[in-house]
């Protein structure tokens, strides 16, 4: 039995105290799990991720990290803060805000430097990451001189540089080209195999099965609607329809038959049918 890393009990959170983002959420996350947080836009995925990273604090309920309560006060403790930041890393949804250093090199070095890692070690990590993500030519650029996809890669590198045991990713594949998406999926898989806990927020149904063993679905009412293993949850079409992750789609085929089926918001729009086997 793996140990629990996060315990969330009856957490409610609203942005600026008036826009509800999470309502009565209960959740346990164990070490070495691979989890996908699934939900339509505005369902509260980002909010939950921020709470898991100790950047937002619920108005109601409590969250524990390794048995310790995660609050603004507990994170003021230098030792706990350092331990928590070393253990949990977050790749933000918006790379623009995550990148604030003057060069790509400095950006990747920022995290480990703050955590007091030796200079030689920091240099090794940064150079390894630059190599892994094939970004050596960009190392002296300023993050604002990069394309959206490149920014995302730098953001991922700058989080990995801390070598967190628990990796939180907020819609990491958004805005990446298919090749980089495939590379990232591969990378996450590899990181998971090396013992990391991975929690990814997404609304890309096509990738969930690869990204997660356990799927947690947030509904538009900001509650957890269901959770279970990926194949089980993804098989429940009526539920996915209900939380607005897929939508029913009517279209006429060449032979004139009317055809109806459900599909997700993105990749599944491009599909092929055998026209004689329609419903």
């Amino acid at each position, binding site marked *: 039995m793996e140990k629990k890393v996060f315990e969330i009990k009856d957490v409610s959170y609203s942005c600026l105290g008036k826009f509800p983002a999470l309502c009565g959420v209960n959740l346990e996350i164990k070490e070495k799990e691979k989890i996908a947080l699934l939900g339509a836009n505005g369902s509260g995925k980002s909010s939950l991720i*921020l709470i898991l*990273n*100790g*950047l937002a604090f619920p108005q109601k309920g409590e969250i524990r990290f390794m048995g310790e309560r995660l609050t603004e006060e507990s994170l003021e403790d*230098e030792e706990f*803060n*350092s331990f928590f*930041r*070393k253990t949990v*890393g*977050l790749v*933000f949804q*918006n790379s*623009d*805000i*995550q990148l*604030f*250093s*003057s*060069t790509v*090199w*400095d950006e990747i*070095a*920022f*995290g480990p*430097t*703050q*955590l*007091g890692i030796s*200079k030689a070690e*920091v*240099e090794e990590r940064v150079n390894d990451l630059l190599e892994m993500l094939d970004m050596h030519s960009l190392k*002296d650029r*300023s993050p*604002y001189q990069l394309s959206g996809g490149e920014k995302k890669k730098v953001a991922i590198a*700058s*989080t990995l540089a*801390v070598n967190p045991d628990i990796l939180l990713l907020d819609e990491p594949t958004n805005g990446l080209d298919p090749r980089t998406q495939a590379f990232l999926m591969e990378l996450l898989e590899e990181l998971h195999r090396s013992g990391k806990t991975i929690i990814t927020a997404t609304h890309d149904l096509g990738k969930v099965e690869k990204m997660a063993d356990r799927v947690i679905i947030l509904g538009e009412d900001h509650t957890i609607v269901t959770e279970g293993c990926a194949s089980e949850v993804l098989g429940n079409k009526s539920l996915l329809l209900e939380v607005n992750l897929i939508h029913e789609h009517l279209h006429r085929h060449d032979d004139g038959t009317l055809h109806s089926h459900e599909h997700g918001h993105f990749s599944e729009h491009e599909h092929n049918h055998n026209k004689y086997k329609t419903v």
Partner: protein
Amino acid sequence: MSYRWLKTEGGIAPCPCCKIGGRKIGFLERTLVEVTSFFRNGLFSEEYAKKNGILQRIDPRVKILTLGILLVAVSLMRHLTLIGGLYLTVLFLAILSKIDLKFFLPRVWLFIPLFSGIIAIPALFNVFVPGEPLLTLITFKSKWSVGLFEIPKTISITKQGLFVATMFVMRVATSVSLVVLIVLTTRWQYLLKALRVLWVPQMFTFIIGMTCRYIHLLLKLIEDIHLAKKSRVIKKTSVVAGQRWVTSQIGNILKRSLQMSEEVHSAMLSRGFTNDVRILDTFRIKRVDYVWAAFFILFTSVILGFNSILG
């Protein structure tokens, strides 16, 4: 799609006016866009810092230190020829650093009147620096006084005044050229880092760096908002409406930048930032830096020697 208006029926209608260039964006809007693109492209382009010239190869710390020593030497010079010589040296360094003089000279001399004009111009006249008159401008009936100053009978440009003013302008020109040279040949992030490593407090340079980053995000935001508006505008808006739009956007941008700064702060917290920044010093002194430093110290000493021999 079932909306009545969201259809294209009978193809794209012909344009009723089709006079490209008819609609002009308003002055205020255009200025805003020009200012932002100047900052984004002009100031931060680092075109010269990326060239492969002599100063670009010197370690930023060594560069700042040696040119800083030269800066002090400039202020000690009492001979016009020596200052002139130093000025030519700076120009020579600019050429060796592959800086286009057509770009360099106007930019330096544009700023000099700002810095020095206020001081240098009065010095020309015998009112402030008495001496042999070179050119008499006005002759009064008798001398008179304004407050502390005694206005002489004739107001003229004096030889001594001309010397003082020229010295002053040349000093400022040489110093400004030196500073501009450092800034142009160093990428600003390294400049900040070098300053930080040398003597400027870390928090200070970190804040400057962050400010530059914010300015960037802000400028990008302004450009994006402008583009978003441009792609939606169909009818030419009146000047007043345009101005109102700009002012409302400024409020909007401020609000968004506040939110942005909060978000950036949380992104920093997420990676272990705890209000006292740690910075990695990654500069390495190479042989070229030693050679350069040795040469420069020798050069400056020689010039200073001449300065004292000449009295």
